[in-house]
């Protein structure tokens, strides 16, 4: 896992909104320290990830050291520390996919997107994650892009997956521009 969560990061507008929402939610939660993990889970469930500052806020809520909250959160694989991208890419590294070269596929995505596993691209378009067996081992190696399963993925297919998303984005943008033009001329 590569993360720079320990260093202070710029909090962007989207993140600030998440943090503001958490600040409103937190007082509603129990202060019993046994609830620490469930509270982290709730935050992740609601917002998709645990922003750095949210762990500091949770620590203050339970009156424990932030180092402890960070230690607990990073111990479990279920927590994310970066916002999910609009196109979350999950590379399967379950046994079958691992044997069929899932690592190589993950590395291809890493290089193509310029982010490490567990990270999100600057424009929040893509996030990259590893998962363990998505239940269709016969199609290994498997990658889940958004809701869609990509089967028998090869390095050349990695490029294809990204290109497809880019093309769709472009089409959507052109449609939008056209719509706007139409509504302008009306």
């Amino acid at each position, binding site marked *: 896992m*590569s993360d720079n969560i320990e260093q202070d990061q710029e909090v962007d507008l989207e993140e600030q909104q998440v943090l503001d929402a958490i600040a409103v939610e937190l007082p509603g939660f129990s202060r019993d320290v046994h609830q620490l993990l469930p509270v982290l889970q709730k935050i992740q469930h609601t917002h998709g990830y645990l922003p750095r500052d949210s762990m*500091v806020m949770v620590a203050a809520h339970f009156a424990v050291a*932030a*180092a*402890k909250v*960070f*230690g607990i959160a*990073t*111990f479990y694989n279920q927590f994310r520390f970066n916002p999910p991208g609009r196109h979350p890419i999950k590379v399967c590294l379950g046994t079958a996919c691992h044997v069929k070269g899932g690592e190589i596929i993950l590395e291809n995505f890493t290089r193509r997107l310029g982010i490490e596993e567990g990270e999100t691209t600057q424009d929040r378009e893509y996030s990259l994650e590893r998962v363990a067996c998505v239940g269709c081992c016969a199609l290994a190696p498997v990658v889940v892009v958004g809701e869609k399963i990509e089967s028998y993925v090869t390095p050349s297919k990695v490029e294809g997956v990204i290109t497809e998303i880019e093309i769709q984005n472009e089409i959507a943008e052109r449609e939008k521009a056209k719509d706007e033009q139409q509504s302008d001329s009306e």
Partner: protein
Amino acid sequence: MSKDRMVTLTVDGLEISVPQGTKLLKACLDNGIYIPNLCYIDDMEHPPASCRLCLVEIEGRPDPLPSCSQKVEDGMVVHTETDAVRLLQKTAFRLLVSTNHGKCRLCMANKHCAMQQIAKFLHMPLRTKKLRYIPKDMPEVIEDHPCIVYEPNKCVLCGRCVYVCSRQNYDFALDFARRGFNTTISFFGSQEEGVGDYCRNCRACVDICPVGALNFKDERDAFLQDLQAKISA
């Protein structure tokens, strides 16, 4: 535990008497019998027994046991230098140094590092040839604390710093983070506003670290400057 009750046991043929309830490792160390150890601290009630270096053989027990978590018993017969013990210690040591880049001369702990001491005692090199050297994929220094620097590639994850900090503060300013091969010590936000200043700069963690993984920033800077001067001289 009654204070005065003494227990007599035999270690490597030597008879020693220590107060009841003493941990075997402490009993040996206090009586001049050295056993390699990293993760034990005097008077720990529940030693983590995680470094696996302090193993000894106790007559009547089938396998070697970590002496840090064994309490002394009357009439106990202990051997600290058997082949089985040495084999296990050497394996544990190899695993510990398999991530060590071995640049001792550039380290603040040089000459008083526990790993160097144990290497000498076990006649082992600080870079093992038997196991593959796997460097940790981590930065050389992590500076998320305002005045303490942490060097993850030197850290042997003994947990002594976490223990003393919790003792000192009744809470942790630092703790383990992540897991498995990626485990580190982290100060995450320990001096952030609103979280309370958990770290009191008491330097307990820096002083207890058996290797040179935790240091005060200014002291380390001064050391590096000195070193630089020596090298260029």
